[in-house]
């Protein structure tokens, strides 16, 4: 993700932050594009937001199954090189409390 893509995407965060969703389908990824290799393994999720669906990376160190309740949070979504910006984005986290 480059700088302008990040900048355009951050306008969408507040629409989804804190929203609850249900897992419709999930895959635990063991192979990723180079941007995310350092974050492996992580889940990729298809989520039901009731009125729409969204697909997001799962929060680090969490495993999910169909039917899990999740919340949308802000996390790092890429392992950036030293000179790059830190890329934050939306992920899904299992509801724990």
């Amino acid at each position, binding site marked *: *993700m480059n700088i302008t*893509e990040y900048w355009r*995407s951050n306008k969408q965060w507040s629409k989804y932050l804190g929203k609850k969703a249900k897992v*419709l*389908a*999930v*895959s*635990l*990824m*063991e*192979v*990723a*594009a*180079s*941007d*995310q*290799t350092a974050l492996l393994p*992580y889940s*990729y999720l*298809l*989520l039901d937001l009731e009125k*729409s*669906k*969204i*697909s*997001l*990376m799962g929060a680090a160190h969490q495993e999910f199954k*169909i039917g899990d309740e999740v919340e949308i949070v802000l996390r790092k*979504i890429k392992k950036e090189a030293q000179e790059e910006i830190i890329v934050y*984005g939306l992920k899904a986290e299992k509801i724990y409390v």
Partner: protein
Amino acid sequence: MNIKVIGNYIGKFAELWEQSLTDLIKEGVEGVLADAQIDPKSIDAIFVANKASGSFNNQRHLGALVSEQFAHFPPAMRIEGACASGGLAMLAAEQALLSGVYKTVLVLGVEKMTDVSGSETAAILATAASREKEYGSTFPALYAILANYHMNKYGTTREQLSSVVVKNHLHAFDNPKAQFHKKFTLEDVANSAMVASPLRLLDCSPISDGVAAVILSSKPSSRKAKILGFGHGQDTLALADRQDLGRLAATEKAAKQAFLMAKLSQTDIQVAEVHDCFSIAEILAVEDLGFFAKGKAAAAIAKGKATYGGQIVINPSGGLKACGHPVGATGVKQIAFLANLIEKGKFERVLAHNVGGSGATAAVNILGI
């Protein structure tokens, strides 16, 4: 409609270290002209199918690159629809012929994938997905999502996914152009390295270099293979926007159009080359094309209904999985392979199915005599 496939050629699909993109193009042009036995000057136009030469090879402008293989420089254009580029190039060629502007056209599909690293390849293939809505996914992860959904909803099992792979590798054994001549057991597939659960390494089609070409003509010809019908379906780019994750609606739409045009139904089709970029993709394909009921294909394939002696032969070439998947070439290879089967008198009603991305684009062609 009177469009015949008057020439067909498939190059070897493999990691072709010695051949550049241009070498593959030259081979495809020479090969198909040799098969067609026509004067090169009779090619009125060229449709080039390619997904990502700009990224893989730093070379775009492929229409010009193919056109200059001919002394008379026919008009040429590149068609791109991710993995459906080949099928879409066929549709563009068919429409050009139906319009009457051209009478004989070359459709050439080519992809040279192995000049970049594995992780670069993964990133390039991921461009078939929605950049804005599917960031962080890989192509296997998106199909893994479809597999996870299908297994949960229809009870499709690990073993049934594996049976697709075993079958296609068996078929490829007899295809000299196939990338793999290696038979696998169900256990081999289920025990291969996990890529994105539930899809393992052997559930995934490989990285391949290759070229395939056909010549279509509306002029009278003694060649047997005719285009009987075609269809083109689209759906949302991102999985999250699909209506039903259990099917690829684009395939259903394309199939409906093609069968209507051909005035045929599913039971008429003897052989089909379908888009098995992953094992689950073949299961979805044969259901959405209407060969098997939704949720029933996996069991049918596992029981041998999709191979010789069964209800229909699916992917006799070995499919994308075992024949290989040089992305832009695949859709054209399907046509070339099927046309060749018809020319040899082996089958009379055949279907080619080519999908782009996780199912946003689908092209279906029905051929016969």
